[in-house]
């Protein structure tokens, strides 16, 4: 009898067991849990106390210590402000609790930390508008924060900026099953949108390791790239419209749902990727592709980088219409993942390989797709481009292969201090930088390379037991100069945030930056929105 009861629940228990075996595959995406198992970094921060804390020195993000001065034109919070906000939002949405503030003041990497005394959680565009109108009139600086998974110190305050999080605005406003156009509030968590669409037979055009925490508003504001960009293109193409609130509280309704609309300057693009420096995004309309039934994933080994590159070229040519992702990681990244993440299993355990490549296809006919992919893989293997590989046979295997690639940032976090560089480079030169850095750093640190092979996007990560100026001096400005020399971008997808605000000239001309500054002044004359970020401090208003 016992037995019978036990087996009747099998599917469920099997699932949970398999999930456990898969380990944190999905836990991983829940960053709330993640916080508890992050390594704490002794991150180096010096206060220059001139009466009160008004300058913070971040020694770790630049070779020459950079001093960030608190903009003296910003006011500091007083009790009237708090009363105003409580009146506007209700007690519950005005947060001054120390513990909660500690979390929202600290970024995902535990690298940047502000000292904000206030978190506001508006529930409507109208409330966001009132908050900004008030802050603007009082000259209170504001940092928009979403899932706080940003990797460039853009989502946390530098000093005492008021944090505004639209996470409570998480409603889906409409979904059109004919066109696949989704309209939702900016606080929707990416993973929730993915599952909502899954039920409707559609997919989000973007997917990334942080999906369990990041919000669509955060994704749009950073113009996040992710794993499927090679297939679906960037958010500049997929976001059809948005609603944003300007610093003075004005609401810009650009929430169109049209694929084509050539009427004047397309201002929504200013908000895609502007990292909260021009306005707070409150609603988004986004074009979503239909979900296709056949997904296949291969996890492959290559002996050298040149093989990875040739494999990319071949894959684009031979898998063209079904190719949905092509990602890579090097042996150092693989070692870290196997060492630091629970339950991860090496799909190719017989020997270590120099490079691992994931190739995913998405199509509408499983036997056709599979045949095509198998034929491609077998011919690449015969041609020597692939030294070994496995092909996922079910969704469980598929998730465990993805877990390896998506788990690299987390493994790096667990390994100690990490210097992250997110670079766009010509694919053929991309990995030379990793080799150069290994030579430069020698035994000082581990150099790890992984990223979006299909987009020419290298994630160069330098991992060390702790942050150390000697290491940093070897990295910067070398990495930026190298990138500049090869006409790359110093930020492929993470943005500039605080980390790279002063480095913008490596990728943009002075004339371009000047126009950006003028736009910033036009939309946010008091400079209250996400100060010290994105644009160089020399020209910030």
């Amino acid at each position, binding site marked *: 009898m*016992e*037995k019978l009861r*036990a*087996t*009747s629940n*099998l*599917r469920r228990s*099997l*699932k949970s*067991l*398999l999930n456990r*075996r898969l380990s944190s595959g999905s836990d991983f995406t829940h960053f709330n849990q993640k916080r508890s198992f992050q390594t704490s970094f002794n991150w180096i921060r010096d206060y220059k106390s001139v009466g009160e804390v008004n300058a913070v020195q971040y020694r770790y993000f630049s070779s020459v210590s950079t001093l960030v001065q608190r903009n003296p034109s910003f006011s500091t919070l007083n009790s009237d402000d708090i009363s105003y906000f409580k009146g506007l939002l209700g007690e519950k949405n005005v947060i001054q609790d120390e513990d909660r503030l500690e979390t929202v003041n600290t970024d995902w990497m535990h690298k940047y930390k502000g000292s904000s005394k206030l978190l506001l959680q508006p529930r409507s565009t109208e409330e966001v508008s009132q908050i900004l109108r008030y802050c603007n009139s009082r000259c209170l600086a504001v940092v928009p924060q979403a899932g706080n998974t940003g990797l460039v110190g853009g989502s946390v305050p530098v000093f005492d900026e008021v944090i505004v999080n639209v996470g409570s605005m998480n409603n889906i406003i409409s979904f059109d099953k004919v066109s696949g156009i989704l309209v939702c509030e900016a606080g929707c968590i990416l993973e929730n949108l993915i599952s909502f669409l*899954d*039920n409707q037979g559609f997919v989000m055009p973007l997917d990334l390791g942080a999906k369990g925490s990041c919000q669509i508003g955060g994704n749009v504001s950073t113009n996040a790239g992710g794993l499927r960009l090679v297939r679906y293109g960037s958010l500049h193409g997929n976001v059809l419209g948005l609603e944003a609130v300007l610093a003075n509280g004005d609401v810009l309704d650009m929430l169109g749902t049209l694929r084509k609309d050539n009427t004047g300057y397309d201002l929504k693009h200013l908000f895609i990727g502007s990292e909260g420096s021009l306005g707070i995004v409150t609603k988004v309309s986004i074009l979503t592709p239909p979900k296709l*039934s056949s*997904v296949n994933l*291969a996890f*492959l080994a290559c002996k050298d980088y040149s093989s990875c590159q040739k494999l990319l070229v071949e894959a684009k040519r031979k898998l063209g219409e079904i190719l949905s992702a092509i990602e890579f990681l090097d042996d150092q990244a693989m070692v870290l993942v196997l060492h630091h993440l629970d339950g991860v*299993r090496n*799909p*190719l355990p017989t020997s270590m390989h120099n490079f691992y490549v994931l190739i995913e296809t998405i199509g509408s006919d*499983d*036997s056709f797709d599979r045949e095509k992919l*198998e034929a491609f*893989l*077998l011919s690449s*293997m015969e041609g020597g481009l*692939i030294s*070994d*590989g*496995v*092909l*996922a*046979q*079910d*969704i*469980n*295997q598929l*998730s465990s292969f993805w877990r390896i690639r998506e788990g690299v940032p987390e493994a790096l976090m667990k390994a100690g201090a990490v210097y992250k560089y997110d670079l766009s480079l010509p694919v053929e030169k991309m990995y030379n930088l990793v080799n150069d850095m290994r030579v430069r750093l020698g035994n000082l640190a581990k150099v790890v390379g992984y990223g979006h092979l299909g987009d020419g996007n290298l994630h160069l990560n330098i991992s060390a037991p702790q942050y150390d100026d000697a290491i940093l001096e070897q990295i910067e400005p070398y990495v930026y100069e190298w990138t500049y020399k090869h006409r790359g971008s110093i930020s492929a997808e993470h943005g500039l945030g605080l980390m790279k605000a002063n480095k913008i000239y490596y990728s943009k001309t002075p004339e371009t930056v000047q126009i950006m500054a003028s736009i910033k002044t036009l939309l946010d004359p008091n400079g209250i929105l996400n100060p010290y970020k994105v644009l160089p401090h020399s020209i910030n208003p």
Partner: protein
Amino acid sequence: MKIMVAVKRVVDYAVKIRVKPDKSGVETQNVKMSMNPFCEIALEEALRIKEAGLAKEVVAVSMGLANCVDTLRTSLAMGADRGIHVEAARELIPLTVAKILKKLVEVENPGLLILGKQAIDDDCNQTGQMIAGLLGWPQGTFASKVVLDKEKQVVTVDREVDGGLETLCLDLPAVITTDLRLNQPRYATLPNIMKAKSKPIKKYTPEELNVEIKSDLEVVQVTEPPKRKAGVILSSVDELIDKLRNEAHVI
């Protein structure tokens, strides 16, 4: 010795199951189908026994629609030597599967028959026991450890039972059904996928095996389990006590 393994094609365990609008069954159109996880474990165990030099050949058997061949291909890519597909146009109940298996055992003469303890689609947990009964072979169900002794022609099976582990020693030939913790199935590597292409899959029809396909079961209705109601967040202990007393009536 030859080992025969039964593999079933089922809706992938990670897929969210949807019931057909007419409640006649679950939706399988445009749904990812994969090998039943318990069958994967059964196959893995057979391959390990073969790799240990204790068996010569592993034969995978699948029954059902034409695309069961995909599941057999997966088996071959994992390392099975050949496949047998018994083509049937409709869903087979465990007794029919057991009867067909019996006929195949008569043709193939394996020394060991390994099955998953159940399939995750119908959760029947019957086929292994039924075939053991039809063949009159000893059975070790819910195996979490299998040790084969070629000399003595016995197999020792640890079974997960409620109170702990039970160890059985079975004379060969025998039937084993596998539990989740028995092993971790391997992945299909490219070299093995390539090799699998030239491995044979033999086809039979139930008629050829003299098995009549009939069912004395009728599915009346398939429905989803009731949805769990969303929780509520209460603002105070008093409110909680009030709800427990006046709504849930538990205190």
